[in-house]
Every structure is written in C-alpha cells, then in structure tokens.
C-alpha cells in the first residue's frame, strides 16, 4: 500500500521532493481515475471535512473561492477535485505538522459541478463533496 502511494507521487511531494508533480493524476479526465492516480481509490466519505467560505452559487466560474478544513486527526494532505472539469484534479496541498489542516484558494469551474475535498490522514483517505452552481462557465473561449 505504502509503496503504491510513493509510486503515485503523493507521499513524496513536499517531503523528499518538493518539485514532484503527479502528471497521471492531473491529466486524469474522471474523478475515479484521478483518485486512483492519487492512491485514494478507496477514500471514505467523512463528515469531519467541511467547506468554508465556499459559495452555493458562483456567478463567475473563472474565479470560485474554495475553502476546505479537515477535522480528521493527522490530516497531512488536502486535494480539490471538480467533477465536471475537463481535468477534475485542481490542486493538492501538503500539510506539514504545525500547519492547520485547512486551506483556501480559488479555482475555475467549467460548469455546475460537485466539488470534492479529498483528505489524507494517517495513510488513509477521506472525502466530502459539495455542489456549486455556476452561472457563467470559467473555461470558455
């Protein structure tokens, strides 16, 4: 299991090799594929992960604020996946000890979609999701 995670590139990032970039995961075209590439195919739904300062409706899909906070003990990574984007994986944040397991950023959304917060804690994976309605897509020409 651990070897698989190392191969997937998630475990190493930020520790052994800060410049690692998980091409397979970011190039994935579906949530299941991205989760597999992250080593998180068996993630369990958790009510200990919350979306903070994240809108129900985004008028502009080009700039959608996403905040994720994890209360799962030993959280050490948080990823953002947007189901209906051409490439669902948007970002992976590595949370070292001493840093709060919460992060805020802004993403692009092509259309109304479920957004997944994927958390790694103590070698296991958990997720929560939230639908964000987009009135104007963020990936058009």
């Amino acid at each position, binding site marked *: 299991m651990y070897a698989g995670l190392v191969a997937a590139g998630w475990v190493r990032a930020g520790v052994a090799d800060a410049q690692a970039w998980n091409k397979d995961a*970011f190039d994935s075209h579906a949530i299941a594929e991205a989760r597999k590439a992250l080593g998180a195919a068996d993630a369990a739904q958790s009510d200990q992960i919350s979306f903070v300062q994240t809108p129900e409706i985004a008028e502009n899909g080009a700039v959608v604020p996403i905040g994720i906070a994890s209360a799962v003990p030993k959280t050490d990574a948080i990823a953002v996946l947007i189901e209906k984007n051409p490439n669902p994986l948007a970002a*992976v944040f590595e949370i070292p000890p001493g840093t709060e397991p919460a992060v805020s950023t802004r993403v692009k*959304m092509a259309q109304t979609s479920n957004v997944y917060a994927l958390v790694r804690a103590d070698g296991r994976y958990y997720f929560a999701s939230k639908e964000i309605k987009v009135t104007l897509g963020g990936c058009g020409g």
Partner: protein
Amino acid sequence: MSDPMKIRASLIGDVTEVKVLMSHEMETGQRKDAKGEVIPAWFIQNVSATWNDKTVLSAQWGTAVAKNPFVSFRFKGGVKGDRITVTWTDNRGDKRTDTAVIG
C-alpha cells in the same frame, strides 16, 4: 519576468495566517485564440512556503487554479519579524520567489 507576489503574514494569537496572491495567467490549454488555434497550457505546477527554512505548506496545482492564484493557510510557531518565503514553479520552468515578514 513575472510580477512579484503579494504575501501578507499576520500573527493572530499564536497562529500565523499567510495570504498569498500570485501574478500568473494560469492558461488552461482548453481555450482557442481568434484563429481557432489552441492556446497552450501555461500554469503554476508547484508552490512551497517556508518559515525560517521549515516548509509550512507545499502544493501541486493543475490548470483549474484560477488566474492570479490566491492561497491562504495558517501555521503555529511564527513570531513577528520572522520571514515567510514563497516559491512557485510553472510548467515552462519559470520560477519566482518572494519573501514577507510576519507582522
């Protein structure tokens, strides 16, 4: 050469809140120009933030992070006057590092 990042690091109790605004196109590779040709993807792939040489956040990003990326996070241990350094690297190999002082 890209524009400097705006980094604000504020002490709130015993927690340092870091807010970073970067200047980058974050081109998705999905859009086409007026001639109908695909505009190549151009985006930040890696970000790291350090406090006194200790990594306090690192990230891998894809093309879905919004133009002129924003990120905020909090860590324990910082004191006023300590330095926070943030570095990003994009898919063209361009790199930018900026520093702020905790206030």
